[in-house]
């Protein structure tokens, strides 16, 4: 299963990569911005997108909106992994078409399973 993830924090990208590597079925590509994710999103087939909320440039919310409004990517499930976890922030993410918002900090040992459940893949 191919997941495309974006997070602007390098340390978080390392943790994400290790956490997802614990699940042998997951093949994750991790990029550092919404722009990079949007470029890659249309070039290859993906089973899920994983977005950070706050990112410089095109943030996670705008990235999600563009993914959902592009017919080439709109059917691919999106999940946020974000430190912004207020009710209104969760509601905002869901209103943009995301399946769920997993809060940071996360348990690295269970993240892969939680992501799979949230993405439904």
């Amino acid at each position, binding site marked *: 299963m191919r997941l495309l993830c974006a997070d602007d924090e390098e340390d978080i990208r390392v*943790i994400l990569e290790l956490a997802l590597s614990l699940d042998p079925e997951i093949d994750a590509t991790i990029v550092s911005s919404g722009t990079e994710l949007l470029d890659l999103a249309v070039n290859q087939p993906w089973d899920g997108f994983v977005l950070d909320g706050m990112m410089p440039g095109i943030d996670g919310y705008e990235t999600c909106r563009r993914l959902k409004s592009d017919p080439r990517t709109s059917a691919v499930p999106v999940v946020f992994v974000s*430190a912004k976890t207020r*009710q209104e922030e969760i509601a905002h993410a869901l209103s943009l078409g995301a399946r769920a918002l997993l809060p940071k900090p996360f348990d690295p040992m269970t993240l892969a399973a939680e992501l799979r459940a949230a993405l439904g893949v």
Partner: protein
Amino acid sequence: MKLPKHIVLPTAEAQHTADLARETEHRRIAEAALRRSEAEYRSVVEVLNEGIAVIQADGTISSANQSAAQLVRARPEDVIGRRILDIRWHASRPDGSRLPHADHPALVTLRTGMPMNGFVLGLHNVDGSICWLSVNTHPLRHADDESPYAVVASFTDVTERLAREREMQRAYDALDELTSEFIGVVSHELRTPITALRGALGFLESGVFATLPPKGKELIAIARANADRLTRIINNILDLERLKSGRVTLSPEPTDLHELLDRIMHGHEKAAEKKRVHIVLTVDVPAPIVVDADRLAQVVDNLLANAVKFSPADATVELHAQANADGMVVFEVIDHGIGIAPAMLERLFKSFSQADASNTRLPGGAGLGLAIARSIVEQMGGKIGVESEQHVRTRFWFTIPVAPPPTSQPAR
């Protein structure tokens, strides 16, 4: 007895004339006093900063002082004798909507006979300015009449006061928003490094990527537990801020209290067993109650965790829930730990207040749990409190209604 010759008694006619003269003189003096008193009162009314007007039952303004005329940007002679409805003004309510003439407080008092106090209306003057007035009205009645023949209206210019209040409200709102934004940003900025920290420690503790010697494992476990603790503190700060600002909406639903409390109790059994503390649960609530179960669990969890934490070894912690006759459920969490000094009891439910900052009375807490508990209970329409006899017994209690109040949102 015979009167001396030089004393002549007045005739009845002369007596009557004298009485009449005396009566006339008394009346003259009384009338003069009345006129003086009336003139004095008139002067008092004239010098008042408050506008005073008398409006007759047919709506005619029969008198108005200088201030009253000034408030409507007119001279008294332009106002007196006119009907209140003839004057070309219109008034607004504080929310900006138009106030119908019939709802003018003077006319309401004339119609209902009831006085009105502090009715605020905005008067749109002919020069385009709006003058905000606080109006009091009082009905005038003849002795036996039920309906008033006139109404006295007094009005004070509150334009400046209202402007100040509105400015303050705007400042409060801005501060509120700023605080909320600040807390949001700070929490986000704190959570990001904790995510990396928590992630790295989680991997090390699990041993999936590297095996550590036992002492190393122990140290990593401590670090991981503290990263979790930091996360909880950040979450609590956020939660408290949201509860206090009224951004939390409760989701009440029918809840089986026995099942809920049993589940909560089991969650604390591990910590209790470590200290050989025994938790006793009694529930005497006949039917399911309508409550936000997650938020209720948050309150009970907090109280129970504290009770277990501060219990000496081999002690008992009691958790009771009982419906009372007032339609409330009373929850109690009782422990037999060191207790709380009387001076500290009042501060206990305030944010960041530890009962004793100098020792470890509340280890592992930033003093937010009880403040959160209070916010939740109050939003549910209940009360929370504590009684403590040091080293003997500490009883935390709270009440919540069996059915939630019609609006679960707190007043801001």
